[in-house]
């Protein structure tokens, strides 16, 4: 009888204890904040802003250390996260190469649906940019005719075969029936710099990567690949307005390695929700043309990843993996 009492008591105690213990999980050592792209690009800027906000508002007892792993269009970062299975102190800022890279590099051995979804911070957009020196190019039509004339001498800069910009470049090649030379650089910032320096002829950068150069009058956007014109670019037509059926977005979500403990997932989800709701983040979204209405998380985000992955498989099949890898 006494034993029974002790057992029920301890069971009751456990029942009370567990949620409390769950809520109390927090990082015990610095958190590696992996960025699957190079410095100065959109993902990098976002990750560094978030890291700074975590520090500024003292949201984590241990620091977040941003680490860039741009190798192999994000393959290096994906493999790294896969190898960290079960680790509660690593999270990754992802972009669309999260889907495309494992499709194109089959022997990578990474299935992103195994990763732990934490939160979708924003949907980012793409614009087509050329250097402002190009007086001959004023709109999409003059762009297409110039590119057709130049043929393979036309150099499009991007962040790597299989990255979202190479997918978009392949989509444009298919839509306009031309072929260009695609040159990979280690990050969106480097791509932007090479466009300003006239080392390449055009790019499909995200707004954040070109914003400052555009404001300084170094580069100009020709067309945006969104459903509607963004408030930040009211004078730039969308591809759809010009009867070109290309609409493409970039997801910017935070994910953990496979098999993260539920306590940790809960903590990180709460953390990124706080960041998402912060004034600074919403301000950044507005100025850089990102869509940030609600933060997708948990099951919903897992489903989103699964659909996006299938959509990219179809897309890559349609334009052909060869068009993307340039082989």
């Amino acid at each position: 009888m006494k034993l029974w009492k002790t057992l029920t008591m301890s069971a009751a105690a456990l029942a009370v204890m567990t949620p409390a213990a769950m809520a109390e999980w927090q990082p015990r050592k610095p958190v590696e904040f992996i960025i699957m792209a190079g410095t100065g690009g959109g993902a990098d800027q976002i990750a560094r802003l978030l890291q700074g906000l975590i520090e500024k508002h003292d949201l984590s007892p241990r620091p977040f250390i941003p680490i860039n792993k741009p190798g192999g269009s994000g393959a290096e970062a994906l493999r790294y996260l896969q190898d960290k299975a079960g680790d509660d102190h690593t999270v990754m800022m992802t972009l669309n190469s999260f889907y495309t890279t494992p499709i194109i590099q089959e022997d990578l051995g990474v299935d992103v649906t195994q990763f732990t979804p934490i939160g979708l911070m924003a949907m980012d957009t793409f614009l087509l940019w050329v250097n402002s020196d190009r007086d001959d190019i004023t709109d999409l039509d003059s762009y297409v005719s110039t590119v057709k004339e130049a043929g393979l001498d036309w150099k499009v800069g991007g962040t790597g075969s299989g990255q979202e910009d190479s997918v978009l470049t392949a989509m444009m090649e298919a839509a306009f029936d031309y072929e260009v030379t695609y040159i990979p650089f280690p990050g969106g910032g480097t791509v932007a710099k090479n466009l300003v320096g006239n080392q390449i002829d055009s790019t499909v950068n995200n707004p954040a990567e070109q914003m400052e150069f555009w404001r300084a009058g170094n580069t100009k956007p020709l067309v945006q690949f969104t459903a509607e014109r963004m408030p930040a670019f009211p004078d730039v037509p969308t591809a759809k307005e010009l009867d070109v059926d290309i609409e493409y977005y970039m997801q910017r979500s935070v994910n953990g390695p496979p098999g993260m403990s539920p306590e940790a997932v809960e903590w990180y989800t709460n953390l990124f929700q706080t960041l998402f709701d912060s004034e600074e983040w919403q301000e950044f979204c507005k100025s850089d043309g990102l869509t940030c209405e609600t933060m997708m998380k948990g099951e919903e985000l897992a489903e989103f990843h699964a659909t996006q992955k299938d959509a990219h498989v179809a897309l890559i099949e349609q334009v052909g993996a060869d068009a993307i890898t340039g082989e």
Partner: protein
Amino acid sequence: METILVSLGSGLLQAFEPLNLFMIFAGCLAGLFVGCMPGLGSVNGVAILLPVTFLVPPTAAIIFLAALYYGAMYGGAISSITLGIPGASTAVATVFDGRPMAQAGKADQALMAAAIASFIGGTVSIILFTLFAPPLAAFALKFGPQEEFALMLLAFATFVGLGGDDIPKTIFSILLGLVLAAVGFDIISGQPRMIFFDMVEFQRGIGFLVLAIGVYGVGEMLWTLESTAGKVQMHSVKITVSRMKQNLLQVKEYINSTWVGSVLGFFVGTLPAAGATPASLMSYGLSKTFSKDPDSFGKGNVSGVAAPEAANNAASTGSMLPMITLGIPGSPTTAILLGGMIIWGLRPGPLLFTESPDFVWGLIGSMYVANFATVILNIALIPVFIRVLAMPFTLLTPIIFTLCVLGVFATTDRMFDTWIMLIIGVAAYLLRKLNYPVAPAVLAIVLGPLAERSMRQSLISSQGDPMTFLERPISLVCILIAVALVSYPMVAKFLKRNKAVEAAE
């Protein structure tokens, strides 16, 4: 010109505000500490201390972080010289001559040379920055992949001078480094390559610091143990005022290397993606190639300490330039600074100079002051650093070994890399016994990936035509200099031999 002076004046006034002045000294001290701990570099220091800066205004914050950055550049030299372990990747070249000098009982001279050279490098660089920031930013934009590759070729050319007289062995060592650098993912296609024994751990590649600590920490320790049978007692030196004065006057011996290192370092630093490590290695190579006595390099030539130290400090200032004018960080540390600036509500880019002049000029002003602060702190602390060498070698060896293991594990967080470091250490010791120079291998692993990427980008854009490297003026000039550098030591040697033959006849 006049506007520059007025802006600079207001910047200097800002730097002398009590809070900012305090930030400069605090930053330099913190930097010295993180810099001299193997495994902790300026990147970690800036990342860890970023939160502290949210308590003060943005200008004070960037001043603190920038001071930390310089401090770390110098701190790396301290462990390179006294322990023979590069405290940071930027200080690897400092080990080449700094360590032999310490073993010969001249650690104080080496530390003094490092301090003075760092000071000159930093100052020259900040003056160039002040006067020519906008035109230099425009020049950096002219650097496409072809120019980057030509510059890397130039760096490789200086290596040939690095290996002593045995050119085939030097080339072997370079190739070994290039092979190790190729491990991991192909940078263009993203396919895994050179994965030894199909071990997935190799997919992440072999880190540069892993190699450097293996070669200079463990390899050097084994070598010293063997050559002295553990009986060595490091020569400790008594620091006296007259000796310090004498060390200060020694500056004449290395002043030329210092100037060259300063200008080169600044320039390489301003190129996005290069940074302080390649700059310091190139500066060492150049200094050796043009030295009157190249054979003494690697055996304790004071110019071999001054050249890389001038260059790495100059480069750290230089790498601020693309960050401020283009919003593109020139080094991993400035990438974190960039993140900080975004939080403070500043948008680095071509408009920063006109939109936030107080911030930019406050930063520039503080760089002048920070240079003075670092040199004063460093010279004052030399007697403290020197005490490390007073320890008996039997005690120092286990400490060095522990620091090596700790340093690697702290940087990469993987036991696998620690084992690689130990294997490389033993391999380096064996190579050294066979008279192979190891420095070129270390340099190749730093520059290899940079050179490969730019070469392949150039060839893609020219559709496979290698003439693209010779068609562009900057690239052509770099390649011609590289060819001259490679042939110079050979020609010099040939002429020397001819003279000797004539004399014998």
